[in-house]
């Protein structure tokens, strides 16, 4: 598996650290209820198909990425810098 780092280009999976679903970028706002926080902290989808994950290019440039990939076909569809995805 190779991930297209926007900074480094296509790189081997070994250089990356997987940090789960990109829900971490969608922090609930002030006053959000317990349900929102429960979902944010604990609950994760387990999709068969397209998913958005956070990956850290740990051994490479050090950037956090949001990678879109397909869990059924294993296709890696795109990767963007997390700082841009979070805007």
């Amino acid at each position: 598996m190779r991930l297209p780092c926007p900074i480094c280009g296509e790189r081997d999976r070994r250089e990356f650290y997987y940090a789960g679903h990109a829900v971490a970028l969608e922090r609930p706002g002030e006053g959000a209820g317990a349900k929102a926080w429960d979902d944010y902290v604990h609950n994760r989808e387990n999709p068969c198909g397209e998913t958005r994950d956070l990956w850290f290019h740990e051994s490479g440039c050090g950037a956090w990425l949001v990678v879109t990939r397909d869990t059924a076909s294993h296709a890696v569809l795109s990767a963007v810098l997390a700082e841009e995805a979070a805007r």
Partner: protein
Amino acid sequence: MGELTAQSPMDGMMPTRIGGVALREVDLGALTLVMPYRGADDALSGALEAGHGLRWPDAGRMTGTTERGVMWFGRTQALLIGVEPGEGLSVHAALVDQSDAWAAVEIEGDRAAEALARLTPVDLRTGVFGVGHTARTEVAHMAASLTRTGEATFLLMVFRAFSRTLVHELGTALEGVAVRAAR
């Protein structure tokens, strides 16, 4: 206090030659990690040009030479090599002296790339990773910086504490490649 003698990271282990590939330790001199403050990229690049006549490198590239140059070193980071940073730089970037933190090895030989391919996942073919290209990657599971400085020459840097492990790993890879080539 007794007399202290500075020891280089590869002291006693290099230069050496394994399977026709030369390994030499490189003394890069002053190494400064330069990390521009948010929004200060252009100002820093200008200060580098004005103060040192060096350009800020694009991602995955180096400018100047390994004796005096700037090596891309990660997202919004570059390593200033062989130059004491002037006053002008610290206004625009955080600077960290890393002169003694790295062990640097020059690897030269026709089979250098083949041996390195056993240790790192980076695609080292010349069409992809040409002269002046640099990558932060892992080499035998160690955090590393790898730069192609010539057609068959690489500069490889790892943390100084890993110098002995690096020599061991390079030796194993180079011997393996040499044996396979002799068959």
